[in-house]
């Protein structure tokens, strides 16, 4: 990208979707002219051409001024990122205790993980696990220093892994923690196609974050859409001066990133996790995944039929997107978001972000307010957060702009165009059951709205996009809303869904009986879904 062109395409080529956004420079700033997303099999060229043709058709003068000619699209530059199917990492350790943190590190670094320990697998099963033709890399690790349960089996495990490394020179092998002491057992790295790398022990310290970064670097190629999106989120947070969380549910994986403005510090405030298991429908989805989707389903559907529909959703993610298919997709998206949250608990330890951005094809069929509700259903934490949707899938491509200043300039120009504000969600925690928890008064430019706060439900206040308001909460008892107290005044911003006051439990408690649970979820969802009955 350079500053010279008057227009460029931002292309995000995913596993299921190819998305093109046409960005033009007008009146001295970059603006989003339009975007189009279609099945990945269509390809970026056809999608870009149709987008350009639509731009010309809609406003020939503007398109001409921006230098857009559908017959000469190769003259229009583009920034392109791609999502890649996760590669498989076999994670092995001497004990089940040591295996957990290692497998967790690999799972949040973009790898599809199979794991086993000496404690659970005999050498034959362990060899089979490592020699599986689908495995692309091996992570063998131990604590540093190794625990008492690891010291004895560690050398034999190292001998087994070294033998596999000799047989499969294409595999990348990472030795972590005390396993690095076993490096002399391994074949000379010079004669191998795959590298043998050393990493820190898995855990929660600063060194462990180094292992996460090493695994992420190996998992995601330089042009990876999610890697770029993490940079895009960091730049966006810096530009808008707010703490931003980004959750993406995609065809191949899910991603969560949290970034805040640096406020003049040298240290960057950005953490990101890439979770293959948080794909909308992971390949070979098992009963656990099925149960979780069933738990969020608003359709009366049995396990067998739901399993069939998930299989179809996996094999043809763009098909059957309307009608009941949209319901299945949203249930799968909630379940995937739940898996993403479970895999990234340490990222959610801080306060609620100012802005939460939802992204990914999983949400594309739902109206904005329903996206806000679906995320709020799963991301349960006390606080007030504005929700937005990355509708044109821009954060990935824009995050790939190499020059930080240019990237910041483009993102600053596009900040108002690139996100659809879907609403503000205020979630107090610690409400006592009863008829009324207190009163809410919303002071907006158009007037004042008063509401009774009924625990266990959702309250909606109409607040259009672009409008701001002050929501004044007066609770009968002390609650948590960022801090503990009874009286709060919260600045809120409008969106397609307005202000959503979420008075349900934190964490959410839903009825065990499936029918009752489904009715409750359906009631909440239908209150926000215009045309839902159609």
């Amino acid at each position, binding site marked *: 990208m350079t500053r010279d062109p008057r227009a460029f395409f931002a292309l995000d080529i995913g596993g299921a979707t190819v998305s093109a956004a046409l960005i033009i420079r007008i009146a001295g700033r970059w603006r989003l002219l339009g975007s*189009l997303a*279609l*099945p990945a*099999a*269509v390809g970026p060229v*056809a*999608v870009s051409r*149709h987008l350009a043709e639509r731009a010309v058709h809609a406003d020939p003068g503007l398109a001409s001024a921006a230098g857009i000619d559908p017959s000469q699209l190769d003259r229009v530059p583009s920034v392109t990122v791609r999502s890649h199917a996760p590669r498989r990492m076999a994670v092995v350790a001497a004990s089940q205790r040591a295996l957990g943190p290692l497998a967790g590190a690999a799972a949040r670094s973009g790898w599809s993980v199979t794991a086993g320990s000496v404690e659970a697998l*005999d*050498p*034959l099963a362990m*060899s*089979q696990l490592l*020699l*599986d*033709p689908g495995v692309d890399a091996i992570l063998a690790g131990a604590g540093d220093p190794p625990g008492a349960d690891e010291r004895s089996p560690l050398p*034999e495990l190292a*001998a*087994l892994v*070294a*033998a*596999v490394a*000799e*047989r*499969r020179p294409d595999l990348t092998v990472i030795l972590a923690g005390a396993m690095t002491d076993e490096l002399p057992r391994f074949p000379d790295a010079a004669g191998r196609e795959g590298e043998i790398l050393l990493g820190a022990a898995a855990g929660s310290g600063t060194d462990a974050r180094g292992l996460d970064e090493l695994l992420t670097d190996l998992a995601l190629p330089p042009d990876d859409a999610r890697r770029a999106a993490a940079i895009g989120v960091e730049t966006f947070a810096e530009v808008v001066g707010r703490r931003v969380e980004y959750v993406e549910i995609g065809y191949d994986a899910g991603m969560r990133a949290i970034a805040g403005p640096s406020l003049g510090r040298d240290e960057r405030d950005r953490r990101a996790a890439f979770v293959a298991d948080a794909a909308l429908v992971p390949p070979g989805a098992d009963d656990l995944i099925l149960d979780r989707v069933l738990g969020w389903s608003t359709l009366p559907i049995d396990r*067998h039929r739901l*399993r*069939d*529909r998930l*299989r*179809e959703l996996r*094999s*043809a993610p*763009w*098909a*059957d*997107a*309307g*009608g*009941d*298919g*949209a*319901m299945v997709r949203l249930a799968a998206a909630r379940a995937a978001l739940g898996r993403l949250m479970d895999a990234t608990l340490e990222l959610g330890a801080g306060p609620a972000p100012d802005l939460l951005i939802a992204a990914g094809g999983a949400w594309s*069929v*739902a*109206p904005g307010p329903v996206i806000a509700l679906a995320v709020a259903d799963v991301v349960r934490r006390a606080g007030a957060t504005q929700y937005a949707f990355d509708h044109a899938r821009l954060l990935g491509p824009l995050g790939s702009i190499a020059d930080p200043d240019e990237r910041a300039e483009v993102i600053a120009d596009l900040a108002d165009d690139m996100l659809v504000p879907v609403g503000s969600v205020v979630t107090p925690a610690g409400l006592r059951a009863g008829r009324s928890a207190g009163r809410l008064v919303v002071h907006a430019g158009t007037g004042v709205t008063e509401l009774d706060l009924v625990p266990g439900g959702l309250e909606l206040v109409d607040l259009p996009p672009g409008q701001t308001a002050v929501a004044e909460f007066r609770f009968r008892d002390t609650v948590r809303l960022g801090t503990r107290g009874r009286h709060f005044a919260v600045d809120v911003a409008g969106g397609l869904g307005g202000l959503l006051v979420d008075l349900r439990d934190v964490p959410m408690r839903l009825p065990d009986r499936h029918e009752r649970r489904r009715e409750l979820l359906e009631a909440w969802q239908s209150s926000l*879904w*215009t*045309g*839902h*009955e*159609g």
Partner: protein
Amino acid sequence: MTIAAGAASGPLPAGLDLVAERPLLASAVDLRFTLAPGDRLLVDAGTDVSVGTPLAERFRDTVLAEGRLPPGLGSRPGDRWAPPPDTGRRATRNLAEGELLFEWRDAWRIATGEHAEPLDAPIAGIVRRARPGVDIALRATGRVLLGDAALGGPSRGRLELAAGPGGELRPGGLDVGLAGTVLVVGSRVDAETLTRARAMGVRGVVVAGLPSKERRDYIASEARQRAALHRLPPFAVFVLDGALRRPIASPVVRLLEALVGREVAIVNDPPALVFDDADLDLPLPPADLVRVRSGPDAGREGRWIGLVGLRRFGRGVQLEAAEVRFADGPAIVPIGDLERFAGRPGTAQ
């Protein structure tokens, strides 16, 4: 892999390039056969194999053995160990044949097995890669119809049509006269029919959709047979489209009709039907033919009319849409629901 590219018969109508293209045929496909530690590899990379050539022996009950090998053998992990007949060392003589896994404290851990099952080449080709305990990659010389999934297999037999594209084969429709065939059974099939077909010597089944329940029941049935140490005859299920019921796509039907009476093979990785087509003349699908891939109208086929832009569908969902002329008249369909067929059958690269 080479996918047959380009349009079907005639130029592509305007807007049709926004419909996902489904490759009808592919060639130069590497087929993979997974091996487990202990399995005996019988071919090397670069070997030309014909149909029925033994590729490997798979062992059903592999166990771990441990023993010291005679010094000076220079054994490496993955090597095959067989006790030499003239050794006088009892420890070595008693050590079973198997695959060397790794050396630990001067002794080798060896994967050794019983109840060998042959893995024969279901197709002719060239072995591109042969890794003991890992896999064999075979470059097929024939052409390949790719599908959604394949269960069991590999298997090979004479292709026969047992039901129409939208039909269904029931257990009563099977008899021993169908032994040795690969049956095209239409839109769906149940586990009972599959189990019975296998018992009658049918070599495979080609079906448009296989529901998850039937898939699980069939896999469970096969697992029970294996647990009982019955040697299973070669049998495979080739699923063309997915889990839901829908008719087989008409271009695929034309292809399968042209293959009737010929030998075909079903392989698992990638899930595919492989055939040798040296003298096969296949009709081209019309360039404007589109098919509803999924959803309530799955399997319907029609002719492309054109793009209509964003339209509102069930539950108020707005989707890019197109107008398609079906047999009962034109209708608006989301583009994401549609597929078109690529390639010129018979002239694939």
